[in-house]
């Protein structure tokens, strides 16, 4: 009787086989999906890596070209070149005793050349990429979910008059 009952509720063998095949295919699809995502991400990361390399090369080339152009510019505006242009244009040196000097209020005399900003005592090096772009998912969970209750919460409340 017991055997009869069991047999009555047992799936047909072809159904069981189909279920196994389905499960296997589901697993296969999942693995393929994960592999696909992995390949996609790693492929894009590799392409980005190559782009970074290419851009860094380009930066190097541009820096070299800028240096080269600055040096070329300096050559064609050198003191010797400028003096020869002065001669060509028939200019001559002024006589300080015959020059007219005028007092101009607020006029600043030549100050020292500034080629770069001065160092600032409060200078803080800012990272090139914000933390949102560099934090891993795990770190984000740790910082914002797990450790969040310990952190003080600052809420700006603006009250309109």
């Amino acid at each position: 009787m017991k055997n009869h009952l069991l047999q009555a509720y047992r799936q047909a063998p072809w159904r069981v086989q189909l279920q196994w095949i389905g499960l296997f295919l589901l697993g296969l699809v999942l693995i393929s999906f994960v592999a696909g995502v992995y390949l996609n991400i790693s492929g894009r990361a590799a392409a980005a890596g190559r782009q970074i390399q290419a851009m860094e090369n380009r930066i190097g080339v541009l820096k070299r070209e800028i240096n080269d152009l600055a040096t070329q510019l300096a050559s064609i505006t050198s003191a010797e070149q400028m003096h020869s242009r002065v001669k060509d244009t028939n200019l001559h040196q002024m006589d300080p005793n015959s020059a007219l000097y005028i007092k101009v209020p607020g006029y600043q005399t030549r100050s020292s050349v500034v080629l770069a900003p001065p160092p600032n005592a409060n200078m803080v090096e800012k990272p090139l990429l914000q933390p949102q772009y560099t934090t891993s998912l795990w770190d984000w969970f740790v910082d914002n979910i797990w450790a969040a209750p310990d952190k003080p919460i600052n809420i700006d409340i603006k009250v309109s008059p």
Partner: protein
Amino acid sequence: MKPPFWTRYLILSMICALVALGVIIQMVRIQNIPGAKDIMAQSELYAGVKETIYPSRGNIYDCNGYLLAGNETTYEVGLDLFQIVDPETIATVTTTILGLDYKETLVYARNLPGENARYYIVLADFVSSDKIEQLNILKEEYANRPKQKNEVRPSLAGLVWNAHTKRSYPEGDLASNLIGFFGFLDRKEGHGFFGVEEAYNDLLTGTPKEIFMASDPQLVEALPEIPAGASLVLTIDREVQAMAETVLENSVKWSGAEAGTIIISDPRDGAILAMATTPRLDPNKYWEYDEIFPKPTPFNRAVSKSYEPGSVFKVITMAAALDKGIVEPDTPFYDPGYIEVGGSYIYNWNGGAWGDQDMIGCMQHSLNVCLAWIATELGAKDFYRYLEDFGFNRNTGIDVAGEIHWPLRVPGDNQWFEVDLGTNSFGQGVAATPIQMVMAISALANEGKMMAPHIVKSMIINNHQYEINPVVVGTPIKAETAETITRMLAVSLQEESSSALVDGYKIAGKTGTAEIPTEFGYTNETTNTSFVGWGPTDDPQFLVYIWLEKPSISIWGADVAAPVFQEIVQNLVILLDIPPDAVRQNLTAK
């Protein structure tokens, strides 16, 4: 009951297992054979390349931001032996454009890859951009030329070039004696020689970094930030420097001098505005150094050559005596034409007796006897203490390479004799470099404060400009003394109607004529002529020091160096925008 085909499955499985086992055994074997390490090393070659990145050398600018030393692009041309298909064309083209030897290039181009362990051969380096442009046009033309029937198309495949930077000095030999040069032909070990290139070599070079560039894109990382070498902004004004060099060259020619030096400084902060010396070298062709500077010619005589300055040194002696209160400007002195010091007699420059004089007269007529008397009145202890306070016993510390100083002989030294007190007072028997003289005399022009002479005004490190503050080295004399000696020297210049005077500007100054010591004693046939002056006397903004060595036109500083000073100052007041005294005082009073 065994399933159908069980035996076949079993055999198939066993074959697969055996193959897998064989693969594993082979893997283990390969990793342990004697050549395993070589194979690993070989594999690492394909993993990527290790490269040392050299930061670009820092630039050098003048005080107005004009580039004095920078970097230009240049190329290395080589042969990639894997790619070569037409050695003859490569040899012909490189011979025509780069001027290489045809036969030699052909032999290189016919090398097989790996022959003599060579895959790449350097043909030429430091090739200019225009030549590379010519090569590029030809290479592309050959590559794109349609192939005719039975035609062997010429090809420059395998001829490659790589860009790199080269130190360049766009102003040529301008200020080369204080800039120095960089040995750029040695691309790995090159360093700065002389001037600021040597003194600041480490800062200018930056820090090279070795990096690994992986072939595996998964391992690619952003290159680390490698900051360029620090750039320097000098105190030199290129217009003032160019003017000083032009005047110096003309003066050396006109006077028949062997060499010359001109230093222009700002006595208020010790900044060197110009430093011109002869001979000069174009640092773009630094390999001509041996030819231009045969031994023992110094690269920069302003800092690397000491000499007995003669009468310009009298300003130091007089300043010391005034400061100590030994004399006043109107202190009388009777000049009999000689004075005995330490058993030796000292005479005036013309051997004459000048009779009744005051201290201004002593300076105006440059009387050795008077100054020797002042030194004896001051006493050896105080005289040499003042000389030490003025910095004559040490380097000035100016920030260019190669500075020297002559060891000051003081009482107690084996080589010091009592007569030295007398001769030292008028600049004989004592030696100094021009830069030592400039530093010492800057105290007279700057209210007694002696400023450290310096060439670098600011540094640019990691994109931030750091200013260098002027340094007071000492205060050898009081401000009142400085004012008094300046006034005395201005009056003495006026009264002798010196050829150093400049119309519209009140200048203080002193000539110098020094006999030159030889192994047979002093010679008065050839001299060192000097002049030092500063102005405007009520607000000194420049100090000019001139030294012309062994002029042939005249032996006297008043004839040779003083007119050069006048020419320098006439140009300088225009370049520095200094109005004539009357105009300036009028503008200030408004």
